[in-house]
């Protein structure tokens, strides 16, 4: 398979990169100074694209790769891939579900605890030598807080299971009510936000869910409410979120994703009721290796004419 051209869109994982290099003819898109030129010269040998949550395969790229057969995403989210275009052209698409579910859910709870119990701020307090001047203030109890989940898929369900162990009542919003669950369903995000103390975004990013967290939802969540986003930056109207946090209209936020990564809103850097993470939801050694193995496994299966491991299209 060493002659099969694979285009890797951006740096994402050195193990994956090395393995792709070994097994295929790897092109590193981020190292190419003149992409137009490159595509003119090499497009006929590129049969696969490997993208991630930052960059994937939009219509323009797909059109410029006439021999493209498969897009294998190093992510579970598919918002950076033009799925319709892929369907139209018979291009296969795979992602990395399940292997990252636990990590993302673990992080969501970690963010809740960090925001409510001010764990990062406590750590800063000690490191700045402030403990000697006096005790850190009281923080906010987590046990028993009501948790509202937007999107009760694999990740949303995993978050619910963990929160239940802290006696948190669980409610959710989803496109349609789920039959096989006892959690309370709300038919709108605003209803959900009005009835929970911690709101978690755990749905996929589509044109319908862009800015699903807008001013009205933030107002409904309110000055004691906390927003946790482990989905995608564009789920949240970031400008509205920033002003709500700065003005104290929202109680706090734990954010792993932003509209314009790797930029995060600097206005939040001075706030102690937020925790800001650089998109590390699945960022453990164990999980990234498992994700890489899925990408490699899917590519090999495709080029050996075997069933794909985790096909989306």
């Amino acid at each position, binding site marked *: 398979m060493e002659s099969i051209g694979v285009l890797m869109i951006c*740096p994402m994982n050195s193990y994956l990169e090395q393995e792709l290099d070994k097994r295929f003819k790897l092109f590193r898109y981020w190292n190419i100074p003149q992409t137009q030129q490159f595509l003119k010269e090499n497009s006929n040998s590129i049969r696969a694209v490997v993208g991630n949550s930052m960059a994937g395969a939009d219509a323009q790229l797909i059109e410029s790769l006439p021999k493209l057969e498969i897009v294998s995403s190093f992510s579970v989210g598919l918002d950076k891939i033009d799925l319709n275009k892929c369907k139209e052209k018979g291009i296969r698409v795979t992602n990395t579900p399940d292997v990252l579910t*636990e*990590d993302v*859910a*673990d*992080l969501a*709870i*970690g*963010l809740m*605890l*960090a925001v409510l*119990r*001010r*764990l*990062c701020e*406590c*750590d*800063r*307090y*000690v*490191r700045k030598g402030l*403990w*000697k001047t006096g*005790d*850190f*203030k*009281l*923080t*906010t*109890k*987590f*046990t*028993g807080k009501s948790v509202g989940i937007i999107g009760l898929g694999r990740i949303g369900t995993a978050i619910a*299971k*963990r929160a*239940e*162990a*802290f*006696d948190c009542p669980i409610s959710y919003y989803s496109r349609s009510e789920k039959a096989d669950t006892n959690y309370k369903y709300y038919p709108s995000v605003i209803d959900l936000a009005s009835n929970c103390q911690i709101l978690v975004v755990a749905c996929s990013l589509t044109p319908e869910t862009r800015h699903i967290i807008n001013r009205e939802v933030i107002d409904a969540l309110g000055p004691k409410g906390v927003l946790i986003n482990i989905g995608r930056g564009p789920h949240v109207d970031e400008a509205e979120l920033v002003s709500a946090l700065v003005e104290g209209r929202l109680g706090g936020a734990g954010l792993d994703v932003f509209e314009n*990564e*790797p*930029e*995060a809103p*600097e206005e939040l*850097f001075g706030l102690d009721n937020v*925790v*800001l*993470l*650089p998109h*590390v939801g699945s*960022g*453990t*050694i*164990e*999980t*990234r290796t498992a994700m890489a193995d899925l990408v490699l496994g899917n590519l090999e299966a495709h080029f050996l004419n075997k069933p794909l491991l985790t096909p989306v299209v």
Partner: protein
Amino acid sequence: MASIVLYLNNSAKDITFPLLEDRFQFLNPNTSSDSLFSSLAGTVRILLCVANSPVNSETLDKYPSLECVVGSTTGLNHIDLAECRRRGIRVTNAGDAFADDAADYAVGLLIETLRRISAADRFVRAGSWAVKGQFPLSYKVWGKRVGIAGMGSIGRRISKRLQAFGCSIAYNSRKPKANISFPFYASVQELASNVDILVVCCALTNETRHIINRDVMKALGKEGIIVNIGRGSLIDEKEMVKLLVKGEIGGAGLDVFENEPVVPRELHALDNVVLSPHRGGAVPESLLRLQEIMIANIEAFFANKPLLSEIELESLSWILS
């Protein structure tokens, strides 16, 4: 006659218990007038010990009619329990006032440490994400083997929470607990050899001082994590710092230290360590619950009824007579 309670606050903490102030008359050696104090010191029967104010022989000698010490904390290592037992003085603690919040905190510290949440937050706030690129990969929480040193009310709550993260639980305690089905290890060292994460939440006594020593930490290993929400002196802090600095244990989430508020400077530079200024129980609801428990204990005492959160001094074999 109003119930008189001796109010002892020789801690560095400026704590008040407003719910109690309405119900009882406090005799405070720091504020009561000399004449009032000397007339009542000899007859006061119950003492409210604020935070970690020491209660020792010297204290007890001053108040010869004392029959009960009401603690305001979970841990009672600042109270000479052997001396209390010798004098027939009953002791109560905070019961489960702080248990849920301490358990939440332990889980929070554990996730923070493994997933490097504080370090990653610092990375973003320093503007490093755009400049340096990807934050280094951290370690998975799901499915890790957790060893609980001390399976009391806090240890049980930690176990319940961590099981939802796919963690397996094992424990060490003075002796196996009848209604706990997790594997029991007779020594902390054996426990440490068989787990990835050691959560320290037992009482500090003469027997458990430095129970987490160098051998235990080496048994935990290079990838092992320690979480301490008990008392700083449960761990040989000097040894722990050496091992952390050398990379011989994987990391630590610490809410308590041997000499609070002093935290070893060497730890400040480490990203695999999360530091916290003893806030495991510090939420408003737990302080309210604490006051309810203390009121219940004091009222039961004066009514000659069973105390709510009495510590069984007779059964504590580690108290040397």
